[in-house]
């Protein structure tokens, strides 16, 4: 890949997928916008590094999702401080930071109570990815994935019912 092609491909991927990546990072960071922006930048640094290896074997969307999911999951060790805080403290902080009309509080609160892998899986489901695509991104077998998604949906349902 020539430097020119590298740059053009990167810009095209960024323009097409930055919204998708940012949304996933925002969900992963439980609605923390600054952390989500940092994580989005980290994802696109990885995209830049990996781009010469992109061979059209996977669709660009699946390829970017893989980088995004892997960056999120491996990024966790740098954000331990955030994750160590009790979930209710995080929620209170989010509410204080959010605009009065922030309509996504419940969304981030609910998915924020899941463990990291479950949070990633359910965000891919919310993003209307098909099971075979999620399996391609995560490496989890489709049958196993269906069971996991069912269990996560049940957990979310319980959380939201108890939360009122």
């Amino acid at each position: 890949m020539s430097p020119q092609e590298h740059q053009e491909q990167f810009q095209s991927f960024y323009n097409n997928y930055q919204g998708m990546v940012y949304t996933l990072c925002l969900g992963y960071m439980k609605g923390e916008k600054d952390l989500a922006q940092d994580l989005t930048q980290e994802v696109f640094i990885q995209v830049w590094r990996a781009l010469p290896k992109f061979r059209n074997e996977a669709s660009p969307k699946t390829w970017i999702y893989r980088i995004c999911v892997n960056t999120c999951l491996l990024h966790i060790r740098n954000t331990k401080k955030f994750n160590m805080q009790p979930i209710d403290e995080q929620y209170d902080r989010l509410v204080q930071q959010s605009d009065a009309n922030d309509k996504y509080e419940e969304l981030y609160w609910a998915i924020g109570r899941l463990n990291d892998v479950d949070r990633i899986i359910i965000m891919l489901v919310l993003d209307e990815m098909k099971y075979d695509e999620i399996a391609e991104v995560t490496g989890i077998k489709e049958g196993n994935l269906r069971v996991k998604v069912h269990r996560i949906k049940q957990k979310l349902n319980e959380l939201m019912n108890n939360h009122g």
Partner: protein
Amino acid sequence: MDNFESLQSAWKDSKQDAHAGMTAKDMQHFAMQNHSKSKKFHLGNVAILALVCIGISLFFYFIAPMQEAISRLGIVLMVGGLVVRIVIELVSHRKADQIEFNVDTKTTALQASKFYNWRKRIHGPVTVTIVSLYSLGFYLLTPEFLDYIPKFWVVIMDIGYVIIAVILTIVIYTGIKKEMAALREIKDIRSELE
């Protein structure tokens, strides 16, 4: 509308509002800069170790050539320890670079776990052996130093080394703790993926 549908609807709305806050060109410059910065940082560590190694070698070759066999053994242990450390740094950098982010998560987690397991092995007996041999090498120089330098300064030098060694041990231990925590987290991720 059930709970999941309401979450899905909120998710769709949040996508409409999503913007990473940078233009494609800015992000490209940022990624390019970061890529070279990270390379420079890793190679910077190696360069510092290499300079120390060259400095010690030149010092004992031109300025203070040691005559006794035990002192020469000390120099070999010190320089040898640094050379092994440099090689480990280079191998670590290469292994870290080989973790692929563009493959499925199970594969990436496996690669990351292999990397941290390798680091765990390095941090254990290998680092302890290198530090011990380097320290032994340093103290093997003391008898010959006493022939040329007043005893007071040799004692100060030996005590100073202990202080530096304690500080270095704390720094190394903190790094090891961080990496071992990362290894535990990756293990958790791998079991969550099963």
